C-alpha cells in the first residue's frame, strides 16, 4: 500500500485491474485504493508479471503493506513499497459473508467482475465454483456488446449507481472487456446529475483539511505580498494562443504556475519540508496545486519536477491533473509529496489569497485574480492587468526577506522571455 499523501496511514483496495498472470509495465494502473479523502488509481512501479494479489478487494491495510507480488525476470519481488512487515495478516473484507461461494471463489469472481449472486452454482449444495466463474466470463463480450453480459467490477457498479449511469451504457476501457471504476463517466451530462454522488468522500475530505490546517496553525508563519504587472506577459500569451488550436491554448494560471516553479528553483529555501526542527530542502521542484472541487472541498495533487517542464507541457500536466482531481480519480504519482504549494483563486475569484502552509512544507504561494489597476511606469500612469501574488513562509525555516526575494523572482520569470521555453 503506497503512501498516497503525507497524511495517509491506511487505505482500502476497492478494485484490482490486473490478475495473476497479467503482464504489467511501469505506470500501468493496477488497482484503485480508497483513502479518507478520495479514490486513487495506483500505478505499477515496475515491469513484470503479476504472480499474486495479496490484498483482496474491500480490505483496509496500513501503508507499507505489500499489495501484490510482481515477478521480474523470474525473481518475485513485492510491488508495494518495501515494508518491513510480512503480509501475514490480511484482514478479511468487511460485510456479511455470501454463503453461495467460498472466499477464494468470491475474490476470483470480483477480480473478473462477476457477481457470484448471478451465477447458478454447480458445486455441492449449489455453491459457485471457480469453474462456474470462469464459465461466466467465457463469452467475453468485449467485441460484441450485444451478446453476453457485460463484466463490471462491484466498485464500478457502485459508482455507476451513485452517478445514475445505467450499467448497460458502460464500456470497458481495457482489452480484457471488464468495466472498472475509471470507465464510469465522471459526471453524466444528465440534468439530474446528483451532486451528492461527488460528495461521497466529502466528510472525510473536510476532516482531512481540518486536521491539516489545524496542524498548520501551530506553525509561526509570515506573509509577504507583491502586486505584479502582467500586461506584457499576457499579451505574449495571447499571441501564442492566437496561432494555437483550442486544445493547445495556455491559460494564464499555467503561466503563473510556471513562474512559481522557476522561482522556486532560484530560491530553494522555500522548496522543502520542516522535519524534526530543521529544514530539509527538496531535491526537485514538485509543486502542489490546490484544486477546488465542484460542490465543495479541495484536493492538492502534485506536479513533479514542474520547473523542468516547458510551458506547453506544464499546461498539459495542469489540465490533466485538475481533470483527474475533479473526476475524483487521481493517480498515485499525483500524490507525491510536494515541496511547496500554489493556491490560485482563478480569474473569477478574490484579488488576493493569504493561505496557510500545508505542513510539513515551508511555503505556500497565493495567486489572486487578474485585475486591471492603475500602474505607474516611470512618471506615467496607465491601467494595466495585475496579479497580487502572496507568499506564506514558515518563519522557523526562513524570514520575510526570502519571501520577498521569491516574489521578485516570480516577477522576473514572467518578464524574461528566455524563461518561457
Amino acid at each position, binding site marked *: 500500500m503506497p503512501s498516497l499523501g503525507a497524511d495517509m496511514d491506511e487505505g482500502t483496495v476497492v478494485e484490482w485491474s490486473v490478475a495473476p498472470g497479467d503482464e504489467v509495465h511501469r505506470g500501468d494502473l493496477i488497482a484503485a485504493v480508497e483513502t479518507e479523502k478520495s479514490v486513487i488509481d495506483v500505478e505499477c512501479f515496475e515491469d513484470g508479471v503479476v504472480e499474486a494479489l495479496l490484498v483482496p478487494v474491500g480490505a483496509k491495510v496500513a501503508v507499507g503493506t505489500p499489495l501484490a507480488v510482481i515477478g521480474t525476470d523470474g525473481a518475485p519481488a513485492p510491488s508495494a513499497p518495501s515494508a518491513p512487515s510480512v503480509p501475514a495478516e490480511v484482514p478479511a473484507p468487511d460485510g456479511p459473508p455470501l454463503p453461495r461461494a467460498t472466499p477464494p471463489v468470491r475474490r476470483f469472481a470480483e477480480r473478473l467482475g462477476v457477481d457470484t449472486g448471478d451465477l447458478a452454482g454447480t458445486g455441492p449444495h449449489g455453491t459457485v465454483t471457480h469453474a462456474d466463474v470462469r464459465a461466466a466470463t467465457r463469452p467475453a463480450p468485449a467485441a460484441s456488446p450485444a451478446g453476453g453480459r457485460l463484466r463490471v467490477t462491484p466498485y464500478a457498479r457502485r459508482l455507476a449507481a451513485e452517478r445514475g449511469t445505467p450499467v448497460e451504457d458502460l464500456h470497458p476501457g481495457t482489452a480484457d472487456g471488464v468495466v472498472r471504476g475509471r470507465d464510469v463517466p465522471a*459526471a*453524466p*451530462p*444528465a*440534468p439530474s*446529475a446528483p*451532486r451528492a454522488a461527488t460528495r461521497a468522500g466529502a466528510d472525510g475530505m473536510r476532516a482531512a483539511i481540518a486536521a491539516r490546517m489545524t496542524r498548520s496553525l501551530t506553525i509561526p508563519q509570515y506573509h509577504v505580498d507583491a502586486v505584479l504587472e502582467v500586461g506584457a506577459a499576457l499579451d505574449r500569451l*495571447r499571441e501564442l*494562443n*492566437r496561432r494555437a488550436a*483550442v*486544445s493547445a*491554448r495556455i*491559460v*494564464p*494560471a499555467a503561466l503563473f504556475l510556471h513562474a512559481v516553479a522557476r522561482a522556486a528553483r532560484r530560491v530553494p529555501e522555500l522548496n522543502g519540508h520542516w522535519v524534526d526542527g530543521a529544514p530539509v530542502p527538496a531535491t526537485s521542484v514538485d509543486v502542489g496545486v490546490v484544486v477546488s472541487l*465542484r460542490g465543495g472541498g479541495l484536493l492538492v495533487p502534485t506536479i513533479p519536477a514542474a520547473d523542468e517542464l516547458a510551458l506547453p507541457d506544464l499546461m498539459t500536466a*495542469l*489540465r490533466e491533473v*485538475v*481533470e483527474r482531481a475533479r473526476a475524483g480519480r487521481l493517480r498515485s504519482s499525483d500524490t507525491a509529496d510536494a515541496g511547496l504549494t500554489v493556491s490560485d483563486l*482563478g*480569474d*473569477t475569484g478574490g484579488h488576493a489569497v493569504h493561505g496557510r502552509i500545508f505542513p510539513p512544507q515551508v511555503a505556500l504561494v497565493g495567486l489572486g485574480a487578474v485585475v486591471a489597476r492603475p500602474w505607474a511606469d516611470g512618471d506615467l500612469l496607465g491601467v494595466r492587468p495585475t496579479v497580487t501574488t502572496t507568499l506564506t513562509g514558515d518563519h522557523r525555516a526562513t524570514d520575510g526577506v526570502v519571501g520577498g526575494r521569491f516574489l521578485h523572482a516570480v516577477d522576473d520569470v514572467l518578464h524574461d522571455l528566455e524563461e518561457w521555453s
Partner: protein
Amino acid sequence: MSPTADAAARDLVRDALARVAPGPDLDALADTDDVRDVLELDSLDFLRFVEHLVAVSGVRVDEDDYPQLRTVADAGAFLAAAGAV
C-alpha cells in the same frame, strides 16, 4: 436569425456546458446569466467548454471571441452568426 436557429444554437451551447459543469446550476441557468459566474467555471473549465463548443459546432473560436461567449444567449448568437446552425 430565425427563432428555430436561435434555439438550436443555444442547445449546442448548453450541450457543451453540460460536458463541463452538469448539474442543478446548469438546469437553473438563464439564457442571459453569466455562465462563468453562475457555474463557477475557472479558466480550465472555460477552455474545455470552448473545446466542446468547437467540436459540436465546427465553428472557429479565438481567444478574442471569448467575451462573446459570456451568456448562453450571446454564445448562441455567436454560433448562429458564424453559421453553425
